[in-house]
């Protein structure tokens, strides 16, 4: 099967400090890939490079054959990103937020209306969608952010610490949506520092520590190799400070 996302020996430095060091990964449609690591491991930087917001100092990233450096605009049309720092326009309603980003993706008004109806059903946002976003709870905002990220039907959905600050219901809703998106053939990159969350959701795990890839393998393989939980596996791998493992599925 052709990889949807190819990350090839990517490195990134800020002020001579290497934040991502020679990382290579391949991801396929229908997968939920967990990017795990503690704060400062380089997860957000890697995801920002995939999203074309940052340019790698070395290596290449291709999504559906589109280069992140040469065709950033086209690549962005194939992905949706939600991270913990993102917000929505509070003076607009949820519907207006979704309409705005759908328009920016080049969708026509009738298609937008149709897609919003679909999102109302899948995310359960219909009851309050026309209220000003200022009055929304954290969970409601997160649903609008997810809706914004997928309204143009991207091939890749990146969720970077997207469950931060969510209550148990909102978190469950997020996880359900992720599974729904992957079942429909989309690739999900789920980045978190909460290992238990990834263990519940992901079928492939890539662990980062100090910018380096500790392991990239299926969840079952990692658990069987290192035993216990993902957290136990991470501590063991980080302690060993092994060279990056280029896993293949």
């Amino acid at each position, binding site marked *: 099967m052709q990889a949807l996302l190819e990350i090839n020996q990517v490195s990134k430095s800020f002020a001579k400090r290497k934040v991502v060091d020679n990382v290579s990964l391949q991801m396929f449609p229908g997968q939920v890939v967990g990017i795990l690591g503690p704060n400062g491991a380089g997860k957000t930087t890697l995801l*920002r490079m995939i*999203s*074309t*917001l*940052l*340019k790698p100092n070395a290596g290449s990233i291709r999504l559906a054959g589109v280069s992140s450096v040469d065709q950033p*605009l*086209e690549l*962005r*049309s194939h*992905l949706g*990103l939600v*991270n913990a*720092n*993102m*917000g*929505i*326009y*509070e*003076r*607009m309603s949820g519907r*207006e937020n979704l309409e*705005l*980003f759908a*328009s*920016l*993706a*080049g969708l026509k008004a009738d298609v937008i209306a149709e897609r919003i109806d679909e999102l109302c059903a899948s995310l359960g946002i219909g009851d309050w969608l026309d209220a000003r976003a200022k009055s929304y709870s954290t969970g409601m905002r997160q649903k609008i*952010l997810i809706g*914004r990220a997928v309204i*143009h039907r991207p091939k890749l959905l990146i969720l970077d610490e997207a469950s931060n600050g969510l209550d148990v219901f909102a978190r469950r809703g997020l996880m359900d949506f992720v599974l729904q998106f992957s079942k429909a053939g989309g690739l999900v990159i789920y980045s978190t520092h909460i290992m238990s969350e990834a263990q519940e959701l992901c079928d492939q795990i890539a662990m980062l520590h100090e910018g380096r890839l500790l392991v990239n393998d299926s969840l079952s393989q990692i658990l069987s190799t290192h035993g216990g939980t993902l957290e136990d596996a991470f501590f063991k791998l980080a302690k060993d400070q092994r060279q990056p493992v280029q896993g293949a599925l």
Partner: protein
Amino acid sequence: MRASIVKILWFKELRNTFRDKRTFWLTILLPLMMPIVMMLVVPLVATLVVGKSKPDLMTIGVQGDIGRFESALMGPVNLLAMAGFKPIKLVPVLDARAAVTSKKFSVAIAMPQSLPSGFDDGAIEIKLYADSTKTRAKSAELYVRTAVDRFNKKLLAQKLTSLGLADTDREVLRIKAIDTADKKNSISMVALSFLVPMLTLAWAMTGAQPVAIDASAAERERGTFETLLVSAVSRWEVLLGKYLAVLSISITSALVGLLGFYLLLLAVRQALKSQFGAVATEILEQKIGDISFDASMMLALSISAVAIAMAVSAFALLPSLFARTYKEAQMYLVPGIFTAMALAAPAFAADFFNLGPKVAWIPISGAVASMMRDLAGSTDWVLTGIGLLSCTLFTAAAMWIMLKLLSRESVVFRD
């Protein structure tokens, strides 16, 4: 670059701006309401305060018999007296010095025993006591000196008549001033020509700043900036959409302010005219000039206001793009305001330093110089065009810098 995307982003910023009541008040309603409030307040003050109570402007203590000097003292202010003012009130005091030192009066005069009836009586002194730290004392002193001067001139005229000469014969060399300026407004319009461009600059800034901050630093603070950048839009489209929104509000503020100012002048004129009739017309003609802006002048003023708004919008957006928070952007904008004002300064000093038309090539200064010319009643379309061009070039350069800034990762992710 896709025009449809720019338009979406532009309208998004405008919608965000108009949904924030504070920004709306500051950028649109304030320039509009300020002159309207003044239009209501000025006639009210004129009617209630000036028209009915007719307050005394200043009081002068007088020691001794003022006699026939009183008519001379009141003479210089006859025009105002006709309008219902009582500019000078003379109050008898026992000791002129004590009247001033006791702080009861700013100025007091000690009259001599008798006033001279002619030049043969020799020089006689009037002692004038004044507290030089008080502004009112300076004005009162000026009135007294003017009165004395008029008194002396009256005696001189009498003397000349007795010698068979006319009063005008004492001036063998005279000045006849001929104004060569191509203008229909009074030269006193110069005072307005300083005020109006500065206010236009201030209003353009007032409009540009909150929108610029809201569209950049505040967007970064809210987390919507990254949301926008990760969409399938180019940095140039994002920048242009934001700039057009800032410019739209800045232009609106400047033009609304300009219109409000014009309406205010008309209202003041009408209010004073109805209250004081011909006297007010005389004062206004002397002090303000003929306020009769024609369509051509209004068009030229509007073009220059747009040029100023263009440059000011770039001034406001550039540092705001760099700022991480609303507060940080406000801090960066303070020197920006002073820089914009400094750029306007050469226009005001152009005549003095003989800068000539070169001044029009300085951004903002050119537009200000053009407005000054318009308000003096002699619109110069070449100057207006150069003013617009210099602001356009400045804006283009600022946009290029902003685009470079937005392309830098260290600027986009200042965290």
